[in-house]
């Protein structure tokens, strides 16, 4: 028990330290804590029943909790938390590496927001999406607009990562982005990120991100990233979006990725490609894609898409297909799609089919079905046809309390017959006089 507690503390201590520091820094500067604070949040509890390939019955229970406390002493201070706890009700290993329990702090921070200039300071475990950065950091994130359409953001702290290399010593990550925008025409950003592991540079990346609307119905967006550690461009990824022209819209993708530079900063051996392995570490790929959407009427829409992967070393591949959807907001959603992955060899080819529908009945009951079928060109474990069928029923017991259960039946290369059951309870809560309706994303 003591060991479990010690492990848990080790896992959360970074965030606890950050939150403690944040509180110590900010609270003294606050006026007296008022009683107007409001709390809104959601609790989602899941119990999953499934069997492993060696016939072990797993019954993990997950409790996902997220909440935000607004007006914490002043209207500009708030606290945000999201995380989950889990344990296996059958006392089996549901959480990898023989673990019977699991937990994660997804984010947890104090936020100070100014009324003007979109200025915000977040302290704690923060999620940072700024140019080249898509990180979790135990530390600080701050941004503000400056005059003349300029904006600046900075972040720094300890990187929150999984996998290897789990190097000893201090890990530090920091970065910044400076941007300029003309609200109707363009936004451009220059960003920088550096990550050190035990005094050695692990990642150093620079980037340009762009959104450009030269005229009505024409948009270009994308980014280029440079690896300053390996001294090479990691990727250029841009999209051209045209439309709508009457009922038609066009999305064109053009991307280029250099594997040697792109995957250098991975912490998982999955991405450490070896010469002679299935993926050449010096591979480069051009990806060209086109997607055309056609809005048939208020409810029906159709799309076709085609993507070409053009490699320097490996053979080329393409992915293409079509989709039809029917939507009647808050009442009915349905769709059907068919796609083909056409790789260089039979081993890299499959056809993918999907049909789904979701219908609201009697105002409180939502029934959903989802059929998913993949036909592999080359058999895996003597199986070419892998399919799954799931049925879900969700019932709104009260305005903020929803119960749901789904069953999924599947046949695939690993299971002749697999049945999974998932039960869930979702509860939205609020406390305090100033509580407002929770935002989307319960």
């Amino acid at each position, binding site marked *: 028990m003591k060991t479990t507690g010690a492990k848990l503390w080790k896992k959360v201590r970074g965030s606890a330290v950050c939150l403690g520091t944040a509180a110590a820094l900010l609270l003294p500067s606050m006026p007296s804590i008022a009683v107007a604070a409001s709390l809104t949040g959601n609790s989602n509890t899941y119990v999953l029943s499934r069997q492993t390939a060696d016939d072990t019955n797993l019954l993990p229970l997950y409790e996902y909790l997220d909440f935000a406390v607004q007006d914490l002493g002043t209207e500009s201070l708030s606290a945000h938390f999201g995380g989950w706890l889990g344990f296996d009700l059958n006392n089996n290993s549901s959480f990898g590496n023989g673990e019977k329990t699991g937990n994660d702090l*997804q984010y947890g921070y104090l936020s100070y927001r100014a009324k*003007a200039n979109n200025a915000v300071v977040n302290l704690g475990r923060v999620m940072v999406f700024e140019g080249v950065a898509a990180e979790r950091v135990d530390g600080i994130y701050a941004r503000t607009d400056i005059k003349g359409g300029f904006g600046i953001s900075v972040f*720094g702290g300890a990187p929150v990562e*999984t996998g290897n290399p789990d190097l000893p010593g201090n890990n530090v990550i920091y970065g910044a982005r400076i941007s300029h925008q003309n609200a109707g025409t363009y936004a451009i950003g220059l960003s920088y990120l550096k990550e050190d592991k035990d005094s050695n540079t692990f990642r150093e990346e620079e980037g340009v991100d762009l959104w450009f609307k030269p005229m009505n119905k024409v948009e270009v967006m994308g980014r280029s990233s440079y690896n300053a550690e390996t001294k090479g461009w990691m990727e250029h990824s841009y*999209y051209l979006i045209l439309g709508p022209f009457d009922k038609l819209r066009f999305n064109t993708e053009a991307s280029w990725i250099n594997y040697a530079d792109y995957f250098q900063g991975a912490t998982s051996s999955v991405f450490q490609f070896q010469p002679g392995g299935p993926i050449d570490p010096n591979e480069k790929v051009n990806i060209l894609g086109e997607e055309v959407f056609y809005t048939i009427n208020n409810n029906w829409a159709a799309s076709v898409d085609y993507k070409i992967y053009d490699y320097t070393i490996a053979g080329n591949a393409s992915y293409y297909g079509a989709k039809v*959807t029917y939507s009647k907001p808050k009442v009915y959603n349905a*769709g059907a799609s068919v796609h083909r992955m056409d*790789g260089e060899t039979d081993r890299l080819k499959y056809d993918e089919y999907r049909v789904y529908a*979701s219908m609201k009945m009697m105002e409180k009951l939502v029934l959903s079905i989802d059929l998913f079928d993949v036909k592999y060109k080359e058999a895996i474990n003597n199986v070419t046809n892998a399919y799954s069928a799931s049925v879900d029923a969700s019932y709104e017991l009260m305005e903020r309390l929803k119960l749901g259960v789904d069953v999924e039946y599947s046949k695939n290369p690993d299971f002749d017959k697999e049945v999974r059951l998932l039960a869930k309870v979702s509860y939205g809560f609020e406390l305090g006089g100033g509580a*407002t309706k929770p935002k989307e994303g319960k």
Partner: protein
Amino acid sequence: MRTQTIRFAALLLIPVLAAAFLLSSVAAAAEMKHPVEVEAPAICSQCHEDWRASLDHTPEFGKLRHKFQAYQNKQACGICHVESFCSDCHAHKEFLKPSDKFKDEPQRDLPHRGDYINQHKIDGKINPASCMRCHGRQNNERCQACHR
């Protein structure tokens, strides 16, 4: 190294404290919230003509465009979405697939439906960069079970 880290943290804290001081001198902010309720899917261009129009949640928004909006304007996402909306998919450690959590919303473009454990062997070879974005430095502990 520890001294270096402390020095770095102190340097970083100076501008943050300065910003906090400056911010405390301006009027308090209300929670950032869209002034009128928006029904999903949000078609922002119905009211806006500037950059906000590009936030239209058209069918390809989730799969294709939302990442660029997040890199440039994450605070705009926060007008309608809470942080957990991001972490439902962009996880640090996760054992439930997003498509399993939201079986009651099959219309959402959520990844890894069906037998993805076998399908990923093909997708991962064709375009490993698409895996890297979510599993490169986070949520990759389960990968290690096979990829040692």
